[in-house]
């Protein structure tokens, strides 16, 4: 229900002068004295003497509402999103067990932090097909590309350290992702590679994998995770091969990020989220039906009843 021209409701303001005129109508027969009539109880019909006016007011109100064009209908919104295909490549090597990142007050492992951030990232992108590849000594697909992000979330929950071996096979991971994206027809394909070490295992050279990715148009964002070396824990799990990660990103047209703590990690995913915008087309169309006919009918019926009453039993002298 809505009114197409709500300002025309102002037509109902006519009721104010109508009411004032009705209140102050002084058309009456002069009578010597009402002293005798005062004591006469009013008849049943006399009690209804305001009914015609009430009906007229009702008719005016109904017409005013009819003028404002009430409509019923539904507006349909259709959302057509042209999603991306994203494969998240996650390092599950032993070094992900380091507790140098914080989550609130806790100090979970890097992997736990990364999982939480990724889950948040996925929730931000409902229109994209997202897949999951994990790598360690080898690499495999943890989740295929899917729009069912709920299932994806469950798959992410199941990721554990060492599930693919203790080493770091970046090249294999990227190659697996490329393999996943090779046959799909999305307009843009993105891989997000997250690691905390250098390539020290696997059969595929990371740069070769990057070449392959570039050749089928997979843009690869690389993220190096790990707090900078500090006195006391120098080099603990901090052997990111930044150069090759940067190289991979460059080759595929992506970008390399460094995440030294949780905040920067979240920021990195935010940045990627912003860089990879999904095209969403929203079509909304409205289908309205005018309802004024029933209102006009009500007004008409009111006026007819008023007229009939006014001409018959409630006819008033002087009119």
């Amino acid at each position: 229900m809505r009114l197409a021209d709500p300002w025309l409701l102002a037509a109902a303001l006519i009721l104010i002068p109508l009411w004032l005129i009705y209140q102050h109508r002084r058309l009456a027969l002069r009578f010597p004295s009402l002293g005798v009539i005062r004591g006469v109880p009013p008849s049943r019909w006399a009690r209804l003497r305001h009914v015609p006016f009430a009906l007229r007011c009702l008719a005016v109100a109904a017409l005013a509402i009819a003028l404002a064009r009430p409509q019923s209908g539904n507006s349909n919104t259709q959302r057509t999103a042209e999603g991306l295909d994203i494969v998240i490549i996650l390092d599950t090597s032993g070094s992900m067990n380091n507790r140098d990142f914080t989550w609130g007050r806790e100090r979970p492992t890097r992997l736990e932090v990364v999982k939480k951030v990724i889950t948040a990232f996925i929730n931000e992108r409902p229109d994209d097909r997202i897949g999951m590849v994990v790598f360690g000594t080898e690499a495999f697909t943890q989740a295929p590309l899917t729009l069912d992000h709920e299932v994806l979330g469950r798959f992410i929950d199941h990721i554990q350290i060492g599930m693919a071996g203790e080493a770091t096979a970046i090249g294999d991971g990227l190659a697996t992702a490329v393999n996943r994206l090779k046959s799909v027809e999305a307009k843009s394909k993105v891989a997000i590679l997250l690691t905390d070490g250098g390539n020290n295992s696997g059969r595929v050279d990371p740069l070769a994998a990057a070449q392959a990715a570039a050749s089928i148009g997979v843009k690869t964002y690389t993220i190096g995770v790990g707090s900078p070396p500090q006195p006391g824990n120098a080099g603990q799990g901090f052997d990111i091969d930044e150069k090759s990660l940067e190289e991979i990103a460059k080759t595929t047209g992506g970008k390399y990020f460094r995440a030294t703590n949780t905040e920067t990690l979240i920021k990195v995913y935010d940045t990627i989220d912003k860089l990879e915008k999904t095209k969403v087309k929203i079509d909304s169309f409205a289908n309205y039906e005018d309802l004024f006919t029933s209102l006009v009918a009500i007004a008409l019926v009111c006026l007819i009843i008023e007229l009939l009453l006014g001409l018959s039993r409630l006819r008033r002298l002087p009119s």
Partner: protein
Amino acid sequence: MLSPEIIQQIKKVQFKAGHLVTTALAGNYLSAFKGRGMEFDEVREYVPGDDVRLIDWNVTARMSQPYVKVLREERELTLMLMVDVSPSQAYGSSGRRKQEVAAELAAVLAYLAIRNNDKVGLIVFSDHVEQYIPPKKGRGHVWNIIRAVLTHKGAGRRTDISGALESLLQHAGRRSMCFLISDFWASDFDKQLRLAARRHDLVAVRVSDPREHELPDVGMVALQDSETGDFVEVDTSDSRVRSAYHKAAVVREKELLGQLRKAGVGTFAIDTVASVTEPLVRYLRERERRRYR
């Protein structure tokens, strides 16, 4: 000045009244109000032609010349007409308005008085005394009175009977006969009514219109009180409303009659549809009868 129609109307009323006085009221009905009869006035020298029975022998013996008694009729009566011209008197459902009827009755009474060589005075009142014509004799004076009563345009908005009676008590010194012609739609005049009835021979003439007793069946009617300006809507199509109205009117009439009787005031009623003189004649006859009983 007066428009030709009004002059015509006055002449008509004058003629009608004069005619009525010489026919229907041929008897000396006003004698019903007469006082004790003859009253000694003075003595004067006898002139040939005087009734010898009127010779005052005591004075004649003293003066050694014949003297006669001059007797004056005590019946030199003053008639005061009090006419209500308040807005409620302007009503009339059948051509004649209550005020016109009142004026007609006043004219008849004035003629009656003049024929008997009485003085006539007039008080026209509404919520104040609008016009006062002191009592006088003569045909020309009757003309004045009739004209005043017929052409008077009421200015007041209410009816103040007590005020009018008070001014009567002020102006009329001698006992006079007084007709108070009104519809008595007023309040709080009981005290003055009693006072005036003690000093004067007061007759209350109740003027009404049939609509004041019975309502016709004409549906819903909006009525405005001509004096207070109040509004009321009456369903005249409801028989219960009509009968209740009639009952209320009868009750009101009874109450008024009781009030007038208690105050010692004679009364009769006239209305806008029937003859004015008939009730007058009936009243005067009845009064005469009572006097001689």
